[in-house]
């Protein structure tokens, strides 16, 4: 190949590669969601505490005023895991989880979930070291003390808080004790049954 031809071919190849690379790499990536910073003046711990108070109050109201009242007292409707198929009420744990999923869809920057050392669904066992330590801590303290730590997951740092999840109603306790997949059948009213885990990105 003569020198001008070489330059021609090389030049075109370079240009084409540059365009190709730009097309492949530069123009397609969606903007990564940005975590919302906590409100000014709140420490991560205060924010997690505040969120937990709201979550647990909402669920306690649902458990006592809807499920316990209509299922156990008035006996007009049942609560069931398969609430759509059985035209029943969602279980309090499901109400909590559906709320967590709705929050996650809106991506406000924090996540939360319900876990247990004795879950009905094994997927809700603690997975990370912080979760395992936290759930054991709150269970051992009888629900009197919360657990706070920091952990790194997927290369990102989080402030993780674990709060005791207490069986506030016989509706919670009797259903878990009678469920075929429950590893424990001796829960008592007001006993720690699991934990709420809230994570705030740092």
């Amino acid at each position, binding site marked *: 190949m003569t020198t001008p031809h070489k330059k021609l071919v090389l030049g075109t190849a370079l240009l084409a590669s540059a365009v190709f690379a730009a097309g492949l790499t530069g123009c*397609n990536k969606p903007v990564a969601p940005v975590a919302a910073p906590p409100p000014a003046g709140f420490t991560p711990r205060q924010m997690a505490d505040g969120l937990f108070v709201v979550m647990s109050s909402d669920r306690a109201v649902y458990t006592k005023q809807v499920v316990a009242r209509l299922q156990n007292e008035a006996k007009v409707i049942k609560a069931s895991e398969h609430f759509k198929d059985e035209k029943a009420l969602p279980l309090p744990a499901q109400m909590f989880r559906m709320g967590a999923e709705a929050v996650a869809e809106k991506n406000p920057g924090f996540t939360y979930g319900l876990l247990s050392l004795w879950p009905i669904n094994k997927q809700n066992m603690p997975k990370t070291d912080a979760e395992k330590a936290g759930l054991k801590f709150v269970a051992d303290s009888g629900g009197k003390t919360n657990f706070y730590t920091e952990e790194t997951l997927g290369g990102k740092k989080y402030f993780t808080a674990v709060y005791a999840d207490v069986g506030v109603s016989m509706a919670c306790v009797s259903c878990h004790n009678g469920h075929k997949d429950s590893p424990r059948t001796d829960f008592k009213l007001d006993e720690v049954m699991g934990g709420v885990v809230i*994570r705030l990105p740092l």
Partner: protein
Amino acid sequence: MNARQKTIGVWLGWVAFLLAMTAYLTHRWRGPDRTAFLPGPTSHGHYQIELACNACHTPWMGVKEKACLDCHGAELKAANDSHPKSKFTDPRNADRLQVLAADNCLTCHKEHVPERTRAMGVMLPDDYCYRCHQETVKERPSHKDYAFNSCATAGCHNYHDNTALYEDFLVKHLDEPKTKSAPRVATRALLAFLNESERWPKKPALTAAEHDAPAPVRADQETLHAWATTSHARAGVNCSDCHLVPDAQSKTKRWSDKLDHTACATCHKDEVGGFLAGKHGMRLAQGLPPMRPALARQPMRREAAHRELSCTSCHGSHEFDSRRAAVESCLACHNDSHSLAYKNSPHFALWAAETKGAAPAGSGVSCATCHLPRQQSATDGVTRVLVEHNQNANLRPNEKMVRSVCLDCHGLGFTLDALADPALVRANFTGLPARHVESLDLAARRLLETQSKQTKP
């Protein structure tokens, strides 16, 4: 020619070639046929719309994050998706996502790579469940001998839709007979629904003499007879109610001889919506020309090759015979082994008896009974029986059919066995299932164990 002239000539030639290629490719890109840009054949699910690149791709050929959910989101929600994205967005699942990025449809379902695409448009090996569910064989002694490549292929579990397979559902349907006594499908009451929902007012039936086609149009006797003796005239729907369509620009109504699905959608919005979501109408939904049997990958009858798919291709254009649409319209195009075996099947025997009047209404099983089933639906605040026109909503995996179709007439165990037998499916259910799905046996065993534990002193 000296060397310098030669060099200039080569450069000019090369630039001219580049400009010509650019012009040609731009012309192809802007034109109706973009097949030159397809990086590889698409799957059976999407081949019909493979030239509507914008359905899935961003302008610079990234894949739109919401592309899948735009079409499939509603169905997944209705099926109570067992593995929705929301299950994986919690940071606690970050390690799982590194093994398998299950928060993104594209991890398992890529297009344009047919050499890697397997059943259900999945690109992973059959044992993908292992990546997150290794503990199952330890926690469920009943599963200790099951291979991980059988989770989703044995008829017991699906990744997305387990509405007919979850354990409590199996327990509810233990010990059901193969065929229920006096099985019936729901009756449609379309006109009553249209009146109640105020989509169409109550009107007296019309006769041929009362048609309002304008003088220049003047329908022929055959067309008038077809209209006057069938459902539209009975409901008081006159010619102008369908044939006066708003002009695209001026929006004033003008007579049109050639109508499309938008004319039907005024009253039949839900049926048209289902049609556009399924394999019959998905091209129309993307603004492409209608589907034709010649374009299909399934075997189709040669004489139907160039017929365009629309509401009227199945329903007729003035006589609107839904019975014909339930069988004969399907068999006029479909030429695969399942369709060809239909007329020898026990299902067809029931349908033939019903259409002859020798069996009660709702006892026959047409193509539509299974593939466009009648379902309870709430529309405009009114509950009704809707014919689901998205034939894909009950197609693959075929366990999707269990609750919407098979359980109307059959017990769950027999249904699961039949659907798990591909030879029986091909023979259009002539004969008995040669396979057995063990899920009900396992559920019954665990029920007994639980009951005996609970009754122990």
